[in-house]
C-alpha cells in the first residue's frame, strides 16, 4: 500500500526577554543552579505572578510576521500536574484564548533528498505564551535528584501548526524557516543546544488518497533539525510496519533516542495527565490594544519573504540565491550592504557571499555577525574582481588574507604583488617560454588532442604565479599555436 505521511509540529521558542515571564529574575543561560530563581520562581507560599509585557510584545510581533489574527484579549490558564521541577504544581499557559490566533502561514522552501525543490505553505493554528519548567538533574546526586529552577518561568511561545507537512523534508524545511523567522524578528535567539528552540512532532500515516487522519504519536523535545528528520523518518517507518503487520497505532507520546536512532514510548493517552486547565485567578486577561499592536508592527523589520522577493526584483538575483541570502537577517544585510557599496555585479557578490564567505564561516563555526571581514571590505574585494585587477582564483588568496586580518583587499594585492598581469607583451613573453619548454604538449595539441591546450594554459598561469589574465592567456596561446 502507498502511505501518506501527515506531520504537525509544535515548537517552543524561548522569548529573548531580559527577565522571566512572571517574575523579575534574569533568564541568562548557564548560571549556577538556582541562582536565577526568586521567591516567585520557587513558588514560596504567598507569592504571585506578574506578567512581563515584553513577552506579549514579542508574541504579537510573531503573530504579525505570519499574518495571524491577534487576540485582543487572551487568557492565562493553569495546567496542573505534579513534577519536581514544576514548583507551583501547575504551569501557567494559555489554552482557550491564545495571544496569537488562527490565520498565520509560513511559506517554506523544501529541498527533498531526491527531486525538485518546491515551495510549500504551512498553516499555523495558534501560538500561545507559557512559562518553562525547571530542570531535574539526575547525575552527580547519588541516587537523588537535583532541581535547578533557573529555567523555571522562562517565557516560551508555543507555535502550533496544522497537520500540513507530508514528509520529514517538509517538516525540517518548516522548522528551519520558523527558526530563521524568530531570529529574524528578534524574538528568540534560536540557540538549539541551549534549548531555546525545540520541536515536538505529531506524526501519523494514512493510506494515500484517504482523508481521515490516522492515529498520531507525538515525539517530544527534538532539539536539532537532524534529529527532527531522523525521528520522523523512524517513526513513520515504525507506524507503517505496525499497520502492515496487522497492528494498530496507539496514541501516545514517544521520545527519540538519538544514540539508538529510535523512538520509544513515554506514556499512552490513557496514562496522560488530566491537566485540569482553568483560568489563572492570579492573573487578569492579557489585553493588547490597537496601539500596542501598531507599536509592535512598527518595530518589525522587513520580513524574509518580502526581502527575498525584493532581492529578485531589485538585484536581479535568481530565486535560489535570494532564498539562501535571506535565510538570516544578518546574512541578507551583509549581502545588501556589500552589493550597495559595490554598485555593480550583484550576482558576483551573491556568489561570493553564498560561496567562499559562507563556506569559511561554516568551517570556523562562526555566525555572519562575527565575520572578520566587514561588508564594506568585502565589497572592496568584489570591486577588484569586477574590474579585472585580480582573477577569481587570486581573489580567494586575498580573501584568506583579509580573513586573517591582513587588511583591505587593495593593501593585500599591493603588498603581495597579486595584481593581475594584463599586459599582452608580458603575457606573450611567458607564453613563448612555456611553448619552448613544452614541445611535447605542443605536439600533442597539434595532433588533435584538445586537452593539451588546457595543460598549456595551466603551465602559463603557473609560470605567471596565477597573475596572468586568464582570458588573455587563452587568446594569446590560441593565436601562437595557430600561428
Amino acid at each position: 500500500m502507498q502511505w501518506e505521511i501527515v506531520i504537525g509540529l509544535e515548537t517552543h521558542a524561548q522569548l529573548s526577554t531580559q527577565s522571566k515571564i512572571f517574575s523579575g529574575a534574569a533568564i541568562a543561560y548557564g548560571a549556577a543552579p538556582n541562582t536565577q530563581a526568586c521567591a516567585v520562581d520557587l513558588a514560596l507560599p504567598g507569592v504571585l505572578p506578574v506578567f512581563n509585557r515584553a513577552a506579549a510584545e514579542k508574541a504579537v510581533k510573531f503573530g504579525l510576521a505570519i499574518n495571524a489574527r491577534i487576540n485582543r484579549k487572551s487568557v492565562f490558564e493553569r495546567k496542573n500536574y505534579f513534577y519536581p521541577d514544576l514548583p507551583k504544581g501547575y504551569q501557567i499557559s494559555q489554552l482557550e484564548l491564545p495571544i496569537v490566533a488562527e490565520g498565520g502561514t509560513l511559506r517554506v522552501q523544501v529541498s527533498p533528498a531526491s527531486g525538485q525543490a518546491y515551495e510549500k505553505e504551512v498553516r499555523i493554528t495558534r501560538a500561545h505564551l507559557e512559562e518553562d519548567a525547571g530542570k531535574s538533574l539526575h547525575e552527580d546526586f547519588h541516587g537523588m535528584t537535583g532541581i535547578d529552577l533557573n529555567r523555571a518561568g522562562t517565557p516560551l511561545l508555543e507555535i502550533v501548526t496544522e497537520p500540513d507537512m507530508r514528509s520529514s523534508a517538509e517538516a525540517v524545511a518548516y522548522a528551519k524557516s520558523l527558526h530563521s523567522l524568530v531570529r529574524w524578528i528578534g524574538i528568540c535567539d534560536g540557540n538549539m543546544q541551549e534549548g531555546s528552540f525545540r520541536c515536538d512532532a505529531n506524526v501519523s500515516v494514512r493510506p494515500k488518497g484517504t482523508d481521515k487522519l490516522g492515529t498520531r504519536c507525538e515525539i517530544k523535545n527534538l532539539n536539532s533539525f537532524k534529529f527532527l528528520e531522523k525521528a520522523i523518518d523512524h517513526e513513520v517507518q515504525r507506524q507503517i510496519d505496525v499497520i502492515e503487520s496487522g497492528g494498530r497505532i496507539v496514541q501516545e507520546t514517544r521520545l527519540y533516542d538519538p544514540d539508538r536512532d529510535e523512538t520509544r514510548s513515554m506514556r499512552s493517552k490513557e496514562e496522560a495527565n488530566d491537566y485540569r486547565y482553568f483560568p489563572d485567578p492570579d492573573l487578569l486577561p492579557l489585553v493588547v490594544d490597537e496601539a500596542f499592536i501598531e507599536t509592535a508592527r512598527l518595530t518589525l523589520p522587513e520580513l524574509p519573504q518580502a526581502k527575498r522577493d525584493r532581492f529578485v526584483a531589485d538585484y536581479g538575483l535568481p530565486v535560489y540565491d535570494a532564498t539562501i541570502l535571506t535565510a538570516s537577517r544578518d546574512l541578507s544585510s551583509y549581502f545588501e550592504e556589500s552589493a550597495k557599496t559595490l554598485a555593480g555585479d550583484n550576482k558576483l557578490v551573491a556568489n561570493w557571499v553564498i560561496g567562499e564567505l559562507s563556506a569559511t564561516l561554516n568551517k570556523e563555526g562562526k555566525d555572519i555577525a562575527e565575520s572578520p571581514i566587514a561588508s564594506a571590505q568585502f565589497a572592496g574585494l568584489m570591486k577588484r574582481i569586477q574590474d579585472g585587477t585580480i582573477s577569481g582564483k587570486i581573489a580567494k588568496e586575498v580573501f584568506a588574507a583579509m580573513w586573517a586580518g591582513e587588511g583591505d583587499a587593495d593593501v593585500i594585492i599591493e603588498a603581495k604583488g597579486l595584481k593581475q598581469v594584463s599586459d599582452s607583451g608580458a603575457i606573450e613573453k611567458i607564453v613563448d617560454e612555456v611553448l619552448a619548454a613544452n614541445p611535447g604538449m605542443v605536439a600533442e595539441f597539434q595532433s588533435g588532442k584538445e586537452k593539451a591546450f588546457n595543460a598549456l594554459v595551466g603551465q602559463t598561469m603557473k609560470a605567471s604565479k596565477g597573475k596572468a589574465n586568464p582570458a588573455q592567456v587563452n587568446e594569446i596561446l590560441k593565436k601562437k599555436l595557430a600561428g
Partner: protein
Amino acid sequence: MLNATLKELSAQLAAKNISSVELTGEYLARIERLNPSLNAFVALDREKSLAQAKSADALIAAGKSSLLTGIPFAQKDIFCAHGWPTTCGSKMLANFVAPYDAHVIEQFNRAGAVNLGKTNMDEFAMGSSNETSYFGKVKNPWNTDAVPGGSSGGSAAAVAARLAPAATGTDTGGSIRQPAALCGISGIKPTYGTVSRYGMIAFASSLDQGGPMAKSAEDCALMLNVMTGFDPRDSTSLEREKEDYTRDLEKPLVGLRIGLPKEYFAAGLSADVAQAVEAALAEYRKLGAVTVDISLPNSQLAIPVYYVLAPAEASSNLARYDGVRYGYRAPEYGDLADMYGKTRAQGFGAEVKRRIMIGTYVLSAGYYDAYYLKAQKLRRLIAQDFSAAFQQCDVIMGPTAPTTAFNLGEKSDDPVSMYLSDIYTIAVNLAGLPGMSIPCGFGSTKLPVGLQIVGDYFAEAKMLNVAHQYQKATDWHLRQPL
C-alpha cells in the same frame, strides 16, 4: 487601657504616658497569662516584638511617628512575615519561616506598628470554627466550650479577649466576618483588590481578601488606611487613589436606605440572632435610616457555587506543598509518586484534603463544564443580584451568621452544616463586594451576635460610617468577656 481605641493608644504613646515597649510588654504578659486557655496565638517572639517596639519609641521620640506607630497588632498566620514562622495553621508549613514580608506586613512595618505575634487559624483558612488548625482549636473567650468561628478565629479571639488592640484577618467566604460576629468584635472584608494578596498565603485566589479585625469600626478604618494601597506584585490589586477611610465616620445617617434581603431572614436563622438583628435595625431607624425590603434571588446558590470554585482554586493553589522545596516531607517514602502521596497525606488535615479532592474533581475532564464553568456563570448572577439591589438601597444589612457560636466539636463531623454557617457571608466574596460585621447584642446563650453590613464596590467609607454611628449610639462593641 484594654478598651482603649487605636486613637487613644496613639495619643498615650505620643504624650509619652506609655512607651511602645511598655505597651507591647503588657500585651505580651496578658497573652502569656490567657493564651494557654484560648490558643489564639501560634507564634510569639518577645525579642522581635520588643525590638520593633523600641524602634517605634525612637520614631516617636524623633517626632516621626504616624498614627499606628508603636501599637502592637496580632497578625493572622496566613501573612508571611520575614523571620517569623508562617504556618497557615498547617503541619505542612509547621517548619516554614517566611523569608519575606507580605504587603500587609510591610504596610504595618512602614507605619511603625509592632508585630505582636501570629494568630491561630483554620488550616489554610479552610474552616468556620478554627477546629481544623494543626496547632489545636481556638476557644471562644465568651465561652471556652464554644468555637470562635473561622478561619480567622485566632485573631477574633485575641481581640475579643483583649490580647491585642487589633488584628488582621483574611476572608474568603466569611473568615473575617463570621469569627468577628461569633467573638463580638468588628471586622471588615474590603472590596476584592483593595488589599494586596502578595505574601498572603492563597486559599482561593479570586475570593481571598485581607482586612482588619478590631474592637470598633473606627479602629477598622484606621487600619484599613494602612493596609490598603496598590501593589504591583499582585496583578489583581486595584490601581486606585489612596483614600481616607475615616473621612465619612461622622456623617449622620438620616435618609440612609438599608436593604433587607428577605432571603437573609428566612428559615435557618435562629430566633435569638434574628431578634438582635431586628433590634439593631430599630436602632438604625432611630438614627434616621429607612429600611427597604429587597431580594437576592440567587442567594441559595452561593454555597454550592462557592464549594465548587473555592476548592477548584485551592486544589491548584495547594499543589506547591509537595515536599520538594520547603515545608513538610514524609520521613519515609519509596519513589517520587509515593513521596508526594505520603507527604500530602500526612501534611494536610482532613478538611484540606476534602477540599483538594472536591476541587480536583470539579476541574477534571468531563466534569469541568458541569461544575466549574456552570459555577462561574452562577457567580455572575449572584453579583448581578447585588447590583440590582444597590439600585434600591445604600447598604444591605442582615445577620452575619445564622447562629451564635456553636460548641466545639458540634459540627466538626458534619461538613455541610459547618458550611451553612457561612450562608450569609459567602455571596459577598463571590461578588467581590465589601462586607463587614459589627456586634449587635447577645443571643440566648449570652454569646455575641453579629450584624452584617454589605456595601457596593468601594463603599467601605460609607459602611464604616454606618457602623461607627451605630457604635456611637450603642455599647455592644465595648462589652468584653470576663
